[in-house]
């Protein structure tokens, strides 16, 4: 297990004694923080420039029914400037499940804390709007507690549907000739991509306050992961960000591989890097295509979807599936690459750029698109970091942050490519950065193809991790037993915990896995890149018009499967 050896020990000295205790031997620097001093520690780490942990990546609850203090809340912090990571753990007893809210330090804490409240029933003191976020209004109990039955449903009836009252920030409507109006958009509305709901308070056409409601696609990924074996979780990861399913596969499999201490063979790593980049291209195509459709530019949608179809062809040749590929396995790939893999990739490299050129010619200097997007829903880099942004949206605000460069995995440190950064932070730059990143991805793929397919197996030769080949399993007793054990009991992952990340199409996609050695994940938390981005939405659209809100939602690339899991 690779250890990150940059424990920020001097920081501990700034704190009063015994407010935080470092834990040794984990994958990244970890402090056990006393609940009473959490706020102080957070202020020192987040607000103090010398500490510089400016990004709150994730907040995760864990339930340990056997412990004296039943719950644990885990904070993952990141320093953009120094590329350092820090994990804080706070124990919370069941009798008094209250913690201080960290919204004052990191705005990103807002939705993350609501999620912990929803899933575990822990309350955050000082949170302005602590109510359920993923489950519905008639839900009872807290589903990620270990004593909650995974299949226990609650029925929501129409009279119980939450009707948000956007908090009236504007009392000065006295001499206005228009009465403020409250409108509901979504969840079944094309501009809301099917699964979000916004209740906005309007003054004329200007949004003065709004509240975003999500959870319409909460498919209980994390609870499902706890009830399935480590391999069986792979298809569930496909359905997180289904526009670039393969990247999720890779992110999850690398996490488990690190826990197991195995490494995928060179051929699998090579193919994973190429297919991840193709998936990124597809994801950017969907995002930009959908954004432009929301702005009325339908032609580009067709132009974007054609290269996507062609990439589907490649994925289908590899895995048999178009969208939800499940092609990665723990320790390698599910099947060998098709014989014409390289030729197919090269064909795609030839074919994709002309489509992008056409789109850029149509859109980049288009007056209507410029009017709709330049300066709309703009956010500064500093603010975006405080809200927990990562990925292309953050890079469009001028912050060069990319997991592929800062914490390289697979083959990204062996190829020559650039982290694209744009200064504007508005819808236009978020569109442009995706176009530029598509070209960077093509560059990566081209270099890898030029090296040729590495020789060797596509999955590790370890019968405790990978299924033995069919003909061997049928003919040799030992192989058959391994096959049986792997199918019935699953991979036996040793006890431990790890946070591992890849650069998803929309930012840092992290998996925080805790294993107790039982053959199933004890806890698997996804750090979804679009969750903190969506939590900013209300803030982004304030002061703009409704049509601006529609365009800005598209540009953020919110994928519901990943947002709500």
């Amino acid at each position, binding site marked *: 297990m690779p250890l990150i050896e940059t424990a920020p020990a001097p920081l501990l000295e700034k704190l009063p004694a015994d407010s935080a205790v470092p834990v040794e031997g984990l994958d990244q620097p970890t402090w056990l923080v006393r609940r009473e001093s959490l706020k102080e520690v957070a202020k020192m780490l987040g607000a103090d420039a010398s500490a510089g942990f400016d990004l709150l990546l994730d907040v995760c609850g864990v339930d340990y029914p056997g412990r004296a203090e039943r719950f644990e809340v885990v904070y993952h912090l990141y320093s953009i400037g120094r590329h350092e990571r820090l994990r804080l753990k706070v124990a919370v007893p069941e009798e008094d499940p209250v913690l201080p809210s960290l919204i004052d330090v990191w705005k990103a804490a807002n939705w993350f804390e609501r999620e912990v409240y929803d899933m575990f029933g822990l309350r955050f003191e000082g949170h302005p709007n602590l109510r359920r976020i993923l489950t519905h209004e008639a839900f009872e109990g807290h589903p990620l507690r270990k004593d909650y039955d995974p299949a226990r449903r609650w029925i929501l009836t129409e009279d119980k549907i939450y009707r948000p009252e956007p908090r009236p920030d504007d009392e000065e409507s006295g001499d206005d000739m228009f009465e403020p109006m409250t409108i509901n958009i979504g969840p079944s509305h094309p501009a809301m991509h099917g699964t979000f709901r916004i209740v906005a308070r309007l003054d004329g056409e200007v949004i003065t306050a709004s509240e975003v409601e999500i959870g319409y696609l909460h498919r209980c990924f994390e609870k499902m992961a706890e009830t399935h074996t480590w391999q069986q979780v792979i298809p569930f990861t496909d359905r997180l960000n*289904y526009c670039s399913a393969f990247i999720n596969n890779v992110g999850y499999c690398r996490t488990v591989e690190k826990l197991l201490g195995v490494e995928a063979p060179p051929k699998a790593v090579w193919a994973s890097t190429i297919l991840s980049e193709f998936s990124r291209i597809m994801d950017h195509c969907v995002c930009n295509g959908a954004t432009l459709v929301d702005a009325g530019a339908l032609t580009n949608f067709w132009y974007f979807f054609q290269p*996507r179809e062609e990439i589907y062809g490649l994925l289908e040749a590899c895995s048999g599936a178009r969208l939800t590929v499940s092609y990665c396995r723990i320790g390698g790939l599910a099947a060998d690459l098709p014989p014409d893999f390289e030729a197919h990739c090269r064909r795609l490299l030839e074919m994709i750029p002309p489509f992008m050129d056409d789109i850029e010619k149509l859109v980049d200097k288009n007056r209507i698109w410029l009017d709709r997007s330049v300066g709309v829903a703009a956010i500064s880099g500093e603010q975006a970091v405080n809200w927990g942004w990562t990925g292309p949206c953050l890079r469009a605000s001028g912050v060069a942050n990319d997991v592929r460069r800062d914490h390289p995995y697979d083959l990204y440190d062996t190829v020559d490519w650039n982290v694209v950064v744009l200064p504007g932070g508005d819808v236009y730059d978020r569109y442009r950065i995706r176009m530029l990143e598509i070209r960077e991805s093509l560059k990566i793929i081209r270099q890898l193809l030029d090296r040729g397919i590495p020789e060797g197996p596509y999955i590790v030769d370890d019968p405790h991790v990978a299924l033995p080949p069919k003909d061997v399993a049928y003919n040799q007793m030992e192989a058959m037993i391994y096959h049986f054990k792997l199918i019935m009991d699953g991979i036996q992952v040793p006890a431990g915990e790890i946070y591992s990340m890849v650069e998803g199409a929309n930012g840092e996609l992290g998996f925080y896995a805790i294993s107790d050695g039982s053959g199933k994940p004890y806890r698997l938390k996804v750090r979804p890149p679009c969750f903190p981005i969506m939590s900013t939405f209300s803030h982004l659209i304030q002061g703009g018009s409704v049509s601006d809100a529609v365009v800005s939602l598209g540009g953020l690339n919110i994928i519901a499967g990943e947002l709500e899991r």
Partner: protein
Amino acid sequence: MVGESWVTTTFEKLGEWGRNNSFWPLPFGTACCGIEFMSVVSSHYDMARFGYEVVRFSPRQSDLLIVAGTITDKMAPVLKKIYDQMPDPKWVVSMGACACSGGFYRAYHVMQGIDEIIPVDVYVPGCPPTPEGLMHGILQLKEKIERDRKRVKKEKATIAADRDGSSAAA
């Protein structure tokens, strides 16, 4: 009298023919299947070939509800309302494993198939179904409507024959 009945039959046929070949689908796309639905309507698969390209997002204007994606308990009342708002005659295609049965999400927040709340005409399996699968499903629906018309016509004829027979006997 002969002329009148001739006109009536043809009108029915004409209506059904028009309906069958020009559904106005409302895509209730929530998840992965919604992305595949986008593939079906975009240029490569081009559902317009069958006359089904007039995608409407208002339930008042559509006659075919394509439920593409997982329906959670939170979404259920919304789906029910959308269905109720659609004018008759209306049909429902359940696209993908989640909409058909909850798929592999046997979980606390996922509806185990949309037929818990609304009637379904055609179930399209797959996770997600291929675009060909969805098109096949819609063509099945077309056949089903055709078959229903014939069945209704046959039933009407039987009832009429029974009545005629009984009146003749009387």
